[in-house]
């Protein structure tokens, strides 16, 4: 099953390169099959426990090891489903939006990169996956043509720098312990300058790639310039890849003193991201940049949860962390698709374009509002589940009023930027006239993930069980 999930997008991408004409259909096909396979894998893993593979059948240490635990499977499922959804959206709009033929193979390769990243438990293999992911992401951004070249180049350079920092860390760890497999490494782990320095270097690189505050500068421009389906994929999935590795490192490798020592960094950065990202989202005049800044802010929650998890070692924070990741992925995909569809139809990049959108494009606007509800954390959305877990954890630790205050502020900020758009949409004074008749299908496609993130709440029990199954 794992092999299928890895091979199919790759083969698909190769076929698309050979015969570009069938690429859209092929993408849909592979994405559908992969989604089903991912579901199957998730069910298997949740019943029988995690599966491990030593690739090529060599002994542990020599071989690259893959592990499908419930978290990985969940992330794979998320990846494939969003891939399918975005492919559908792109299929419905690519003629109108002049999406390059390059989109299809690239998106399949993106799926390959993500899937292998979620599965891999080998430090160097993760490096290759990261590079793959970074290059695909940049190539996808550059699909937008001239306006996207500069952000894409900037993204690429920073992403390369991030990878190199990570690689240096890997080299140091290999030099010290002689293994690359994470679980093997964890067994021999010692707390010393070398391991700390390696961890810090890798953290620097990964934070840069995941656009975690204060290294987020490249993100709004790149995500804002990309075509809508691409922004959806990037914001929803790509930034989560490095975050996943970051969590692997700190949760599985780092020793307790190291984890406790780094915790303030993550919580502090998370807090700053939440507040400053929110303020930026509130101030930017461009619609897509607003959504992009919101990604910066929302990643702050994940970072905050990670920091608190490292500090208190409370499983609720782990649940919060991954719930944030899942909920944000779905909600952000919906936001980008909805905003992309609206701006494409109403013709303009500025937020003012959205004036009166609740009349001209009610479905897309509804999708945005519903997804926004999850970003704010209104019950019963996925975002609420995550926030609830975070609050529970904080109250259980007691005396964490500062964090609670920050969460309240962050929630209000996110409400402010979401409703800034919604209020504009309800402005009936002089609505912006659409350039052409709004299309229904893409709007529905934008609505789907938004509804999914609210439906997440109904599956909170199994979700939490799955997430607790893994200590990660």
């Amino acid at each position, binding site marked *: 099953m794992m092999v299928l999930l890895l091979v199919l997008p790759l083969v698909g991408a190769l076929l698309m390169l050979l015969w570009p004409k069938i690429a859209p259909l092929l993408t849909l096909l592979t994405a559908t099959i992969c989604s089903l396979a991912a579901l199957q894998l998730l069910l298997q893993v949740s019943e029988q426990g995690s599966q491990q593979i030593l690739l090529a059948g060599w002994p542990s240490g*020599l071989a690259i090891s893959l592990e499908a635990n419930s978290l990985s499977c969940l992330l794979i499922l998320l990846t494939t489903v969003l891939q399918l959804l975005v492919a559908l959206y792109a299929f419905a709009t690519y003629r109108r939006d002049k999406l390059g033929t390059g989109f299809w193979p690239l998106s399949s390769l993106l799926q390959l990169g993500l899937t292998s990243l979620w599965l891999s438990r080998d430090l*160097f293999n993760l*490096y*290759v996956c990261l*590079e793959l992911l*970074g*290059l695909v992401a*940049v*190539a996808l951004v*550059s699909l937008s043509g*001239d306006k996207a*070249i*500069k*952000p*894409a*180049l900037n993204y*690429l*350079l920073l992403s*390369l*720098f991030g990878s*190199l920092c990570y*690689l*240096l860390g890997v*080299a*140091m760890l*290999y*030099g010290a312990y002689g293994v690359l497999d994470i679980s093997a490494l964890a067994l021999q782990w010692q707390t010393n300058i070398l391991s700390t320095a390696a961890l810090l270097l890798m953290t620097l690189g990964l934070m840069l790639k995941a656009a975690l505050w204060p290294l987020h*500068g490249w993100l*709004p*421009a790149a995500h804002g310039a990309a075509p809508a389906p691409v922004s959806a994929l990037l914001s929803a999935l790509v930034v989560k890849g490095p975050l996943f590795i970051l969590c692997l490192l700190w949760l599985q490798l780092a020793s307790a003193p190291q984890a406790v020592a780094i915790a303030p960094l993550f919580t502090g950065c998370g807090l700053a991201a939440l507040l400053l990202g929110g303020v930026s989202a509130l101030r930017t005049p461009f619609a897509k940049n607003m959504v992009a800044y919101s990604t910066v802010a929302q990643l702050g929650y994940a970072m905050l949860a990670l920091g608190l998890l490292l500090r208190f070692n409370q499983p609720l924070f782990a649940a919060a962390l991954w719930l944030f990741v899942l909920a944000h992925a779905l909600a952000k995909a919906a936001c980008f698709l909805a905003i992309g569809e609206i701006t494409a139809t109403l013709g303009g990049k500025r937020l003012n374009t959205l004036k009166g959108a609740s009349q001209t494009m009610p479905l897309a606007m509804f999708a945005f509002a519903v997804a926004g509800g999850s970003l704010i954390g209104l019950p019963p959305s996925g975002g609420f589940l995550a926030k609830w877990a975070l609050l529970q954890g904080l109250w259980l630790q007691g005396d964490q009023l500062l964090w609670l205050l920050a969460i309240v502020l962050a929630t209000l900020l996110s409400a402010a930027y979401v409703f800034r758009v919604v209020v504009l949409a309800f402005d009936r004074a002089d609505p912006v006239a659409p350039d052409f008749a709004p299309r229904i299908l893409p709007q529905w496609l934008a609505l789907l993930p938004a509804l999914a993130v609210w439906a997440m709440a109904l599956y909170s029990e199994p979700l939490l069980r799955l997430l607790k199954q893994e200590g990660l």
Partner: protein
Amino acid sequence: MTDLSPQLLLYIGTAAGLFAIGLYGFIVGPQTLRRILALNIIGAGIFMLMVVLAYRGLADGAADPVLQALILTGLVVAVSATAFALALLARLKQARPGQYRPEQEPGP
């Protein structure tokens, strides 16, 4: 303080130095091409560190094959990324011809 031989120390120091030089170039270098070069120098420094690590202990007269393979992979990845970056750069230049200003512009 350290168990490494002087020769290894020398090379390790050089590797770290290259990393630092590249880092400086990456942060400061005003032209994009220079920053790409700087990235390559960082990469070279890291690969050099890995080569030294492969060389140390020299079992049976052969350096650590695993590390060598990693370096080869890394080299290819690095050159691929460089090629892509240069292609982007070329496009950027073409998109706004005739401009002689340095690329250090205020962000968007």
